């Protein structure tokens, strides 16, 4: 009985005690959001000094009872900087959690698999959407331009239809493509330029595989580096709808500095042109021809994404529309895209099915690049229009009305990209998964061109259409095994892969159409004698076996070994198959006992890697075969019905020994993070050597039947250092400042261009590659491939100023230094020096300031030590062009007269620092019905600091023979760069 009572009393006491305790506790509720205002699920809220904690729900809401005496809570989540908040009596909190500068648990895609960032053993950079630049984006790569050490992205001018140039760790080849392999959700793109068809808003992150040990898993296609693009995926839960859109205006940044009509007249008079001639060319106008061909261009972009799912199913679907007017009249791009990605898990999550469907269509209006020549040749005294509104008609050498040409011509393209992908994985037994993958990519480009009889030109009207397809099929069978025992962790991956690539195209052209209104839509309507039809097709197969093993001991010592065996039908019969091994190791010092007490250090990892990769881009599908191709037609008048039969001629010296270029790379790096992950970074140094470099060598004809042969002979080296740093410098409740930056040093050197082909020595040196171009230039090489120098090294005469008179031997008053420091007007007698035009380093610096709901971001990027040959001013800044051609203001002060010559005077410092992007954003919080609303304004290319005298120091380099030559003539024109302002919105609701 007593015991009963005692029990009851105790129970009552307990209830009392508990209720008293409950009364003494605080119920704390709140929501955790990220910087975009999106609720964060599964965030841990811990009452400081206790073990009491809770997790946020799927919308980021939480609520729990705080033990008495707790004054602050700690909020932590994987990938975010821990935050400690003093409660100060509040019952409800809204917490913005900032993503950690670098999260060790981020998933990094490394090709045929993923690892967590902390387990990466090679040089791999990951960049997520929060770090993307906004603005009028032509190509998704612009989102990360300047942000990844070692990755140099160049946007040549503002043409919405031109592709960016992407280079990872320097120049890798002399004849082949150098663009990194772009892998979209696990599938390599057939052509890296197809990336421009991926809506930027659909992209979640990029993983950049930089060092050879990381890219070796892509074997014969990995030598240029690999960029893995990951699109946004769905997640199960309530349906979420997002909208991202902007509207923007582009205007021309910079100008050529051409003379206006009054300046042209005065300059012509000063140059001694007689009054009658000036009068004859003065048609009474004052035309700014650059303005005449350009406009303020309006762009708008809309992207709607819907995601959701339930049970084992999730999906994301998005639609995208972009309408971008070109800066140049009658040019632009319209893009429409649809994308669906879905995942179904079944059979106790053992079966995992992924499907993705994507379709993008671009309608393009191209620019006729000849127009830019006419802007610079036409005197400003010519009007654009006659008084009656018709185009003012004129024609001369490289001179006609550019406005008429661009407006009257039809110059369109439509491309359609369809990508289908499915993958099925099944967990056979625990830790062992097998799967298959299949994908199809179909790219179709149709172009249409019509040139009417242009006013004053008197050409025959002409039209053509082309239709080209790039198709690929890919399939793989893969197997993954992971296991852990004790402190050992092992992962194994094996893949068999089959790729088939088919290119085909056809074109038709006609001339002399009776009805111009039909444009190019009645190609058969012209003079049948001028009809031309053509078609082309090629095909090749790539088969690969690859395996990778990863091992770590106690998350301290890591080793990754991979090998890939690639066979390609492109390769010569003697070298069909190649092996591409790699090994890399990492040591996480932080996990060693001697560093475990160092609280301020969160991560310290050393890694080292070695690998072998290939580049097969320079090899055509049939380069190894003795083939006959259609040659010129020949005349056989005895055949009255068919007097111009097709001839067939050997089109190449077949090289059955051809194989991939081989890049052998070594990388050493360190990665660190400190002060609660607020500061971090990585430093990588690499030393790569490419041998069996493909180059087109001169061979004697005969016995060879064409004068060149593609052979694996040369060598080059790439050496560099990359530093990437990031940090949350200030992080308080209301205000934060984070910054990240990178600096890249890369030097490429040609180390050999000789060897032998089947016993015949073949060698090249001092191979001319880039030429000074323009009226009067013919065969003036200025850049070379020279052993011991960087590719595209300049070899230029040393300029010594101008003389008093025009020397008759050179037609010019320019002088040059001879070897013995005397001056000469003859450039052939001048001392010539080598100049390395490549940058000493490239860099980018990003700063983000947040104050409450406001975020200000600015991104600076630059290049230091780059030199460009200013071919534009070389040709245009010369008073001797007057009066028939216009000149620049620079031409009025440089005192150069007579013929232009390519001397080092025109090799100009083209270092620059550009304010690439400035974004001010406001995030609305707690709007009813909305999960997130962010409104922003962005200005791009707001200023550029540069000593360079040309229009813009950022030109297409590294991808053509004319690298480092800034040209605006003969169709190689520089499309003006834009300065843009956009107003954008990101909104999402559930």
């Amino acid at each position, binding site marked *: 009985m007593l015991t009963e009572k005692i029990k009851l009393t105790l129970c009552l006491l307990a209830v009392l005690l508990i209720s008293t305790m409950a009364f003494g506790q605080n119920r704390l509720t709140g929501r955790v959001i990220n910087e975009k205002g999106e609720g964060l699920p599964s965030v841990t809220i811990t009452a400081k000094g206790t073990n009491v904690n809770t997790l946020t729900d799927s919308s980021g809401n939480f609520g729990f009872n705080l033990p008495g005496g707790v004054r602050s809570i700690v909020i932590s989540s994987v990938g975010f900087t821990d935050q400690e908040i003093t409660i100060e009596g509040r019952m409800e909190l809204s917490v913005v959690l900032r993503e950690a500068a670098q999260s060790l648990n981020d998933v990094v895609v490394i090709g045929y698999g993923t690892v967590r960032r902390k387990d990466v053993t090679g040089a791999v950079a990951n960049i997520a959407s929060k770090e993307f630049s906004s603005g009028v984006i032509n190509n998704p790569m612009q989102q990360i331009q300047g942000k990844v050490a070692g990755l140099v992205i160049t946007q040549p001018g503002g043409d919405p239809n031109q592709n960016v140039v992407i280079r990872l760790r320097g120049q890798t080849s002399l004849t082949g493509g150098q663009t990194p392999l772009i892998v979209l959700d696990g599938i390599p793109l057939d052509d890296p330029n197809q990336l421009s068809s991926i809506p930027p808003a659909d992209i979640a992150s990029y993983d950049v595989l930089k060092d050879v040990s990381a890219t070796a898993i892509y074997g014969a296609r990995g030598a240029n580096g690999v960029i893995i693009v990951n699109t946004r995926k769905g997640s199960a839960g309530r349906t979420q709808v997002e909208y991202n859109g902007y509207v923007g205006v582009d205007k021309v940044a910079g100008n050529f500095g051409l003379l206006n009509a009054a300046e042209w007249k005065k300059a012509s008079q000063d140059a001694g042109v007689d009054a009658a001639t000036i009068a004859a060319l003065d048609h009474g106008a004052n035309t700014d021809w650059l303005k005449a061909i350009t406009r303020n261009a309006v762009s708008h972009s809309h992207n709607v994404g819907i995601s959701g799912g339930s049970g084992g199913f999730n999906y994301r679907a998005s639609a995208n529309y972009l309408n971008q007017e070109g800066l140049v009249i009658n040019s632009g791009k319209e893009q429409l895209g649809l994308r669906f990605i879905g995942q179904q898990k079944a059979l106790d999550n053992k079966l995992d099915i992924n499907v993705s469907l994507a379709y993008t269509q671009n309608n393009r209006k191209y620019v006729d690049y000849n127009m830019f020549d006419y802007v610079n040749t036409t005197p400003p005294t010519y009007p654009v229009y006659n008084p009656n509104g018709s185009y003012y008609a004129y024609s001369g050498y490289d001179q006609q009305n550019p406005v008429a040409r661009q407006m009257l011509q039809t110059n369109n393209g439509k491309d359609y990209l369809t990508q289908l992908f499915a993958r099925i994985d099944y967990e056979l037994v625990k830790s062992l998964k097998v799967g298959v993958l299949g994908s199809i990519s179909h790219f179709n480009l149709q172009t249409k061109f019509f040139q009417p009889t242009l006013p004053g030109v008197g050409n025959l009207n002409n039209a053509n259409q082309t239709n080209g397809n790039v198709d690929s099929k890919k399939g793989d069978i893969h197997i993954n095994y992971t296991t852990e025992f004790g402190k050992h962790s092992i992962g194994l991956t094996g893949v068999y892969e089959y790729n088939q690539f088919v290119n085909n195209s056809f074109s038709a052209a006609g001339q002399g159409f009776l009805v111009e209104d039909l444009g190019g839509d009645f190609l058969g309507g012209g003079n049948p004698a001028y009809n031309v039809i053509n078609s082309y097709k090629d095909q090749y197969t790539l088969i690969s076996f690859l395996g990778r093993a990863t091992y770590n001991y106690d998350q301290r010592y890591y080793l990754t070994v991979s090998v890939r065996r690639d066979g390609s039908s492109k390769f010569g019969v003697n070298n069909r198959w190649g092996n591409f091994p790699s090994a890399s190791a990492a040591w996480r010092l932080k996990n060693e006992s001697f560093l475990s007490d160092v609280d301020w250090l969160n991560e310290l990892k050393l890694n080292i890697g070695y690998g072998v990769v290939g580049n097969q881009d320079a090899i055509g599908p049939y380069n190894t*075969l003795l083939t006959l191709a259609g040659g010129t037609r020949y005349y056989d008048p005895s055949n009255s019905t068919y007097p111009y039969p097709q001839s067939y001629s*050997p089109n190449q010296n077949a090289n059955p020994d051809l194989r991939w270029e081989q890049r052998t790379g070594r990388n050493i790096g360190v990665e660190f993070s400190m002060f609660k992950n607020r500061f971090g970074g990585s430093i990588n140094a690499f030393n790569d050597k490419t041998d069996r470099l493909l180059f087109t060598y001169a061979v004697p004809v005969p016995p060879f039947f064409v004068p060149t042969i593609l052979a694996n002979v040369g060598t080059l080296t790439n050496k560099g250092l990359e530093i990437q740093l990031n940090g949350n410098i200030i992080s308080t409740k209301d205000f934060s400042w984070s910054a990240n930056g990178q600096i890249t040093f890369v030097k490429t050197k040609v180390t050999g261009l000789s060897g032998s082909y089947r016993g015949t020595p073949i060698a090249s040196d001092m191979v001319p590659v880039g030429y000074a171009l323009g009226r009067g230039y013919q065969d003036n090489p200025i850049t070379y491939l020279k052993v011991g120098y960087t590719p595209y090294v300049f070899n230029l005469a040393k300029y010594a100023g101008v003389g008093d008179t025009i020397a008759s031997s050179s037609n010019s008053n320019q002088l040059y230094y001879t070897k013995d420091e005397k001056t000469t007007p003859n450039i052939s007698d001048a001392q010539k020096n080598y100049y390395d035009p490549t940058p000493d380093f490239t860099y980018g610096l990003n700063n983000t300031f947040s104050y409450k709901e406001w975020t200000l971001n600015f991104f600076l990027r630059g290049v230091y030590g780059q030199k460009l040959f200013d071919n534009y001013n070389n040709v245009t800044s010369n008073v001797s062009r007057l009066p028939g051609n216009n000149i620049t203001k620079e031409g009025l002060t440089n005192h150069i007269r007579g013929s232009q010559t390519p001397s080092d005077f025109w090799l100009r410092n083209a270092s620059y620092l550009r304010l690439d992007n400035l974004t001010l954003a406001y995030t609305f919080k707690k709007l009813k019905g909305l999960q997130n609303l962010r409104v922003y304004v962005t200005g791009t290319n707001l200023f550029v600091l540069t000593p360079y005298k040309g229009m813009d120091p950022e030109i297409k380099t590294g991808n053509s023979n004319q690298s480092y030559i800034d040209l605006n003539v003969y169709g190689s024109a520089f499309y003006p760069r834009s300065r843009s302002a956009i107003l954008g919105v990101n909104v999402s609701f559930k």
Partner: protein
Amino acid sequence: MYKMICLLAASVLMHSCTKLDQNVYSVVPNQNFWNTPEQIAAGVAPAYASLTNIPDGDYHDLAEIPGDDMIVPARGADWLAAGQWIELWQHKWTATTAQVQAAWSDIYSGIGKINFILSIVNNLNPAPSNLSNINAELKVLRATYYYWAMDLYGNIPLVTSFETDASKLTNTARKDVFTFIEKELKDNIQLVSADVSKSTYGRMTRYGGFCTLAKLYLNAQTYTGAARWQDAADACDSVILSGKYSLQSNYFDNFAVSNDNSVENIFVVPFDRNYISGNNFQMETMHYNNDQNYGVAGGGWNGYCTNAEFYSNFDTSSVYVVKGNNTYRTYNDARAGQFIIGQQYAEAATYPPNTNVLSSSTDASLKIKDAQTGMDLSFYPDFDLISSPDAKFRLAGLRSVKYFPERGVAYNQSNDMVIYRLADVYLMRAEAAVRGGTATSKDLGYVNTIRERAYSGDKTHDWTMGDLTLGNLYKERGRELAWENFRRQDAIRFGTFGQARKPQKDADADDHWQIFPIPANQHTANPKLVQNPGYSPF
């Protein structure tokens, strides 16, 4: 059994998994070609493709400019082109001069293709029924390519088999190349078709072969030091006496847009606006604004021209007719009409260019202006400089309208271009006879036939035996064959090659300029090649 099946399945799988399918499209593997007579004809045709670069390519530049009938002055920046055109005129070229390098490639690409084709067609099974004709025709054509190469570069690599080991290849002395060409021609010339008809148009015939042989012998003294005048005359006779050719009654019909039916042309390179490109003769010489009278679409390139010294060889006396405001001239010697001189007027020029040339007008609005300078477009022959930035200098030199342009066509004219024609053979015959001391009235007759054709049948301009001198023949060749790719060779043979010339060409210090240097890029391709005497050794 189970093991067997597994093994079999595995091996099938492995085989299909690693089969690197290669389907060849758009080009044909060599072994799949050469199956029908038509395919063989189409496979042999590339032997001729390189010819499209001969009459109006870099060969043309080398064969004319170092002589005296063609000059490309640098007009400001235009045509300065690193000084290469000046080098050709002044005899200052080097192993890297663009035309010196390119002409070699053009000629040897023909030889390279012929060697390949010969090796293929002679190994076909069954052999083509016309194999001996194919062999003979290709060997005579190859001998002609070698004759051009030897004429320009002297000591050249001689490769007659596709299987030759490239690593052992070096120069052959000029006289040995001569011997090879002579033997090759003599061995094969009688096996080549003597048919002169549509079915051999543009092809090497027996008579084309005799023309090459005549050129070889006529210049034998230059090539070997030993004259072969009688052999040259005999080779000419083989053409003349065949009776297959006669002079075309109108000189310009040999060069017109439709010149297929010329009875005078012996060996031509067919061109066509759409199908066979490379005839840019009129673009090279016409001014940008000549579109207004000659209809060269988009204007010409304002380059090649002739100066006063050469033009003075022509009889420019004319008959003038006034129609309204305009005065038209018709040249007495039709050949003077191949060059246009003086003010140009905006009225469609008529064919043939020797008649009814609008030479002056009282209607000032008809005057064509140079659009760039605003100056009257008026060509003048007398200039003292090879290079000048002067606005007026843009109009220096007379322009040729020999291959009269088709209106509205810019580059890629359809006029077939002439390699050999009967008038040249007549003049060679006469010259060989004069030089050999065997000239008769027959030779005089050949020359007078040409002169009568030029003077519209007027015999008052006929020569006498006394006029039949080497000096006169040199001038007559200049008038008749201007810009037809013989002038450098003729100048060497007539001893004028090394002389000083206006504008700005000094006398050659020695004779090494009579052959061009081995191109530097050929030395890169084959380091065993030795440079010709007088030039910087490799």
